[in-house]
């Protein structure tokens, strides 16, 4: 089972208090990672309005992610992309029963604190927004609200987990409607997991130390991950997913669930597409159901999509060096 304990002794996000003289604890690892466990095999949908959030909920999304603009629109608009309007986030929180997430800029501790104070259910420290700090990510152990981070490789994923991320998603290339990068990233993570697992099984600890140095993380997290043979937190796919078949394929590669950004509400058949992507994610290993889901959408209504080789802005490179 994925480890649900093991918080840092100095984690400021853990709060001990009493309710009617009964001791309770908030913000512990079991609660933060456990929240992500409840999303497994589900679809998280990017939304910008209350109406879109309600469509997502009705379609069976496990959560919605509130943005000011969909990633594809961020790409077109240029300029600096920041966290969404708090009033819109609150309106959405008051109109759906499923969890509500919102994005903050990489390294922007105060934007994250504002989102925690807003009571969003999870914070996404996201490369879709313009990074606020090129050298540091947020120290997430100090948050009571769980945080999800993007990663393109095992090294990036483990660095984020060491900083206190409760969940990981692949970065893919957001706002492109092109699933190729998400596939590349999950395959890279899987390949690297196989390598460290083989080293662990061989008993060559010194070689695991070498991997830890290469990844720029502690030996302990490499050993724990190698022993598990998978990431120690829930791992979703994200970045460029546009169709039910995209979602089902990523599930078949071992992802625990799916984030869909621009793919739904940039398409002209959002309502049907939202349902179809949930259907394909739930029943990804039943090909007749995936076909049924794919039949629900009209490819002529899919977002046009972008070739990742011609992009001026590669969002996935953001925050990769730290």
């Amino acid at each position, binding site marked *: 089972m994925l480890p649900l304990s093991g918080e840092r002794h100095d984690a400021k996000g853990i709060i001990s208090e009493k309710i009617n003289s009964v001791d309770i*604890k908030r913000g512990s690892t079991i*609660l933060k990672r456990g*929240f992500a*466990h409840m*999303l497994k*095999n589900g679809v998280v949908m990017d939304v910008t309005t209350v109406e879109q959030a309600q469509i997502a909920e009705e379609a069976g999304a496990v*959560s919605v992610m509130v943005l000011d603009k969909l990633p594809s629109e961020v790409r077109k608009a240029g300029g600096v992309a920041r966290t969404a309007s708090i009033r819109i986030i609150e309106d959405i929180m008051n109109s759906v029963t499923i969890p509500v997430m919102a994005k903050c800029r990489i390294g922007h501790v105060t934007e994250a604190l504002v989102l925690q104070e807003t009571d969003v259910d999870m914070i996404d420290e996201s490369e879709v927004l313009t990074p606020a700090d090129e050298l540091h990510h947020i120290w997430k152990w100090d948050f009571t609200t769980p945080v999800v981070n993007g990663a393109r490789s095992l090294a990036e994923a483990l660095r984020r987990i060491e900083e206190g991320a409760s969940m990981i998603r692949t970065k893919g290339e957001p706002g492109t409607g092109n699933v190729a990068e998400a596939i590349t990233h999950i395959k890279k993570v899987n390949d690297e997991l196989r390598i460290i697992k083989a080293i662990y099984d061989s008993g060559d600890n010194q070689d695991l130390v070498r991997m830890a140095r290469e990844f720029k993380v502690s030996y302990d997290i490499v050993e724990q991950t190698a022993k598990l043979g998978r990431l120690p937190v829930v791992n979703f796919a994200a970045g460029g997913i546009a169709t039910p078949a995209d979602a089902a394929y990523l599930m078949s590669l071992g992802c625990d669930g799916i984030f869909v950004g621009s793919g739904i509400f940039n398409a002209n058949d959002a309502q049907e597409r939202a349902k179809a992507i*949930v259907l394909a994610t*739930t029943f990804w290993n039943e090909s007749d159901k995936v076909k049924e889901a794919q039949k629900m959408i009209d490819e002529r209504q899919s977002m046009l999509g972008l070739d990742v080789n011609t992009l001026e802005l590669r969002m996935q490179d953001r925050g990769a060096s730290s």
Partner: protein
Amino acid sequence: MSLNIGILSIQGDVQENLLSARAALNELDIDGKVTDVKTPEEISQLDGVIIPGGESTTIGQLSLVNGSLKVLKEKIENGMPVLGICAGMIMLSKTANDRIVGNTDQPLLDILDIKLERNSFGRQRESFEADVSMDSIDIPKFNGVFIRAPSISDVGSDIEVLSKFNERIVAVKKGNVIATSFHPELTEDISLHKYFINLVNASKN
């Protein structure tokens, strides 16, 4: 007779329940298997089922789509033991109200006559761990992991209250149906899973 126990695997923390239930079977030394189940055919073969934590709106809608909701309801009404955890407790209820949004018309199993409130203790930041007790089933102390948990404010006359936290009902039992607001599968403690498996064993043999 070998027991066939299923974890409803539409969405949510299926793996954790698989491991807890398998550990419980093992410790009790009862012959049986635990598998994840999704289709009406798989569900129709079961002796007992666990509805895991997850999003109740997703589990409800998707189990309605593939016909498993109907089979589950029939089996439970015919006496198959069920353990509903968090979203599973919501699924077992007759009606679900959200603390903020109010009445939801989500698909439910309509089994337990309980007055249930979703997200009752608040949003994720308010999620908490606290000790709870279920004395009537000999579990005096249990680490309750409450994640955006529901609670029950009132129950029908045929329902036994197993546990309360801060005046709110967080675990109930009606015959072979058990429901908890908290997540035993996220802890190392398998005592509730053991209790459930004994219930399945007793109902089959």
